[in-house]
């Protein structure tokens, strides 16, 4: 294999891993604070739609980004209200977020633009153009979120408290720190990150929104989060690995190996899911989630 192909594959792996990474870090923040989030997919989707619509109307990708993040945070707050304030079932709320996002983006998109849910194609300033090495600025913003997440969660007072809330909220409460406040901040940070991922999809990677354009990336991000065992640097590794698999699958379409023949694309597409199930089964290592994840916190009376 020559160097040209390697560079191409690496480049597209990076491109494909950025939305995964954004959603994965979003899940990391949320779950580290004790709020399970299977609504990553839905939040990315609303952000992708709001981002593309905003960029189209105002003619600026950055304004689109603002709209995307706003929409994603709004959905994150619905999830937060249900799971933190109302102490509802976090899984159920996540499923609802995903369905709401899929339905609303399609309906509103169709009503506004009448193109089967698509936004009009974005061009010029409405898209993020190349910033460095042929990648848009959003790529670097998302990459920068990795060391930031690592530093804040591992080295700052806020981050340590946030992680404590995900392990033993009663202890944090006893110390006089607001469990609710910390969890809401985590959920909002998750919303911002999902917003970055979604807007990247529709305004940087593609030129406009397509119905259901996240196509399960939110769930692969969830798989990557488990793979990374809820830590920031491994999250980068896991997302890049899954992005690389995706890039290889694209490259191998119709390629025949000597002796083996054609490897079905689906076999490579199935790998992230399969690897996650195997990891969860505890065959190779063990993935242990934050202890209080999924459990609503109730102050003792």
């Amino acid at each position, binding site marked *: 294999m020559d160097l040209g192909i390697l560079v191409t594959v690496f480049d597209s792996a990076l491109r494909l891993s950025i939305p995964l990474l954004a959603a994965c870090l979003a899940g990391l923040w949320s779950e580290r604070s004790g709020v399970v989030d299977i609504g990553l997919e839905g939040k990315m989707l609303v952000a992708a739609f709001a981002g593309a619509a905003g960029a189209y109307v105002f003619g600026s990708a950055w304004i689109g980004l603002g709209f995307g993040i706003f929409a994603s945070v709004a959905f994150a707050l619905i999830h937060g209200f249900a799971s933190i304030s109302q102490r509802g079932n976090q899984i159920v709320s996540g499923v609802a977020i995903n369905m709401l996002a899929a339905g609303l983006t*399609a309906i509103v998109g169709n009503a506004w633009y009448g193109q089967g849910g698509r936004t009009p194609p974005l061009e010029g300033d409405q898209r993020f153009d190349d910033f460095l090495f042929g990648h848009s600025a959003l790529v670097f913003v998302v990459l920068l979120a990795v060391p930031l997440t690592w530093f804040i969660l591992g080295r700052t007072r806020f981050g340590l408290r946030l992680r404590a809330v995900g392990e033993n909220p009663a202890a944090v409460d006893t110390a006089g720190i607001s469990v609710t406040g910390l969890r809401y901040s985590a959920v909002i940070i998750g919303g911002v990150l999902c917003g970055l991922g979604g807007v990247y999809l529709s305004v940087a990677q593609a030129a406009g929104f397509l119905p259901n354009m996240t196509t399960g990336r939110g769930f692969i991000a969830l798989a990557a989060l488990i793979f990374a065992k809820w830590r920031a640097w491994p999250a980068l590794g896991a997302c890049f690995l899954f992005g690389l698999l995706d890039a290889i699958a694209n490259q191998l379409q119709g390629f025949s190996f000597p002796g083996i023949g054609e490897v079905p694309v689906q076999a490579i597409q199935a790998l992230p899911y399969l690897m996650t199930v195997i990891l969860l089964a*505890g065959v190779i290592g063990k993935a242990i989630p934050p202890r209080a994840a999924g459990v609503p916190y109730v102050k003792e009376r």
Partner: protein
Amino acid sequence: MSAPIEMPKWADTILVPAISVVAAFLIAGLVVLSIGENPLTATRYLLQGSLGTGEGLGFTLFYATDFIFVGLAVAVAYHAGLFNIGGEGQATLAGLGTALALNNLTFLPGFLLIPVGILAAAAFGAAWAAIPGYLQAKRGSHIVITTIMFNWLASVLIVYLLVNVLREPQSMNPETRAFPEAAQIPFMHDVFAWFGITIPSSQLNLTFVLALISSYLIWLLIYRSRLGYAIRVVGSNPTAAVYAGISPARIIIIAMVLSGALAGGLAVNELMGYQHRLLLEFTAGYGFVGIAVALMGRAHPVGIILASLLFGILYQGGAELAFEQPAITRDMVVVIGGIIILFAGALDGLFRRLVAHLLSRPKLAGA
């Protein structure tokens, strides 16, 4: 856990779900308003399309059949304290099982094909649910995550098989050849015609009756049998179950097997009853609607049938509505489903507190 909210049983089982559904429709109405359409006209088209004609009613019941099966599937797992969001994948595998059985066992006498097809659907659905069930019970892998992964694995698998293995060589479409005629579950209008009664033709087929029978059997199982009791004990308190001599691991696997088999009913209705072949994406997201149905129906078969009828009305009426008012596409049903899941599931406490508050007021006034 938070303090239980005290209220009479009728309020808990009927009033609270009813209020959350009404609230969901109010919000859906706002969505319709915001895209510049009239919600009242929309409701009229919706009801007319789903209940106004015999044909419409047939289609409504056809969709309801799908939802009864996936709703029961979610409910059985729910009683065991499990959240099975793998209905999509289980139904997909069930469809694969049906197609493999019906297109390969053609040497069997014709009258055996329908039962064999149904059993194959149940067996494949059950097997696809049993693996996450086993991993939850024995290895502690979280069932929600594994069933999500299994949904995606199923969709990747079915694409591969339909495109590369099962497709008719001459056909461009990724679908199998048609099932043998003896394996096609009769349409209701044909059944009625045998007795000389003419009803409007629709996709409604005898699987609807199977769905009603399954609902009754699940009611017997959950509320009247030893196994059902064990399932409910494990669901409400696994520690107590162990002290009572019940093995939670065993019950978890059994509940998931049952759940997956029930999800297979979706494949029976869609493929054996209507499409008569295996094709891509026949599950159409109904597996997720099953969650809304089960939550709204309080995981009780009667509630599930009622909730399924409501969603049947929404799906059939929604199709007619999209025809009359193109701005309101069928995605509206997905939105309503999402809001109902949010209200009846995650925000349940909000409505319960509201109802409890309203019910307790007269007492205070009298005191």
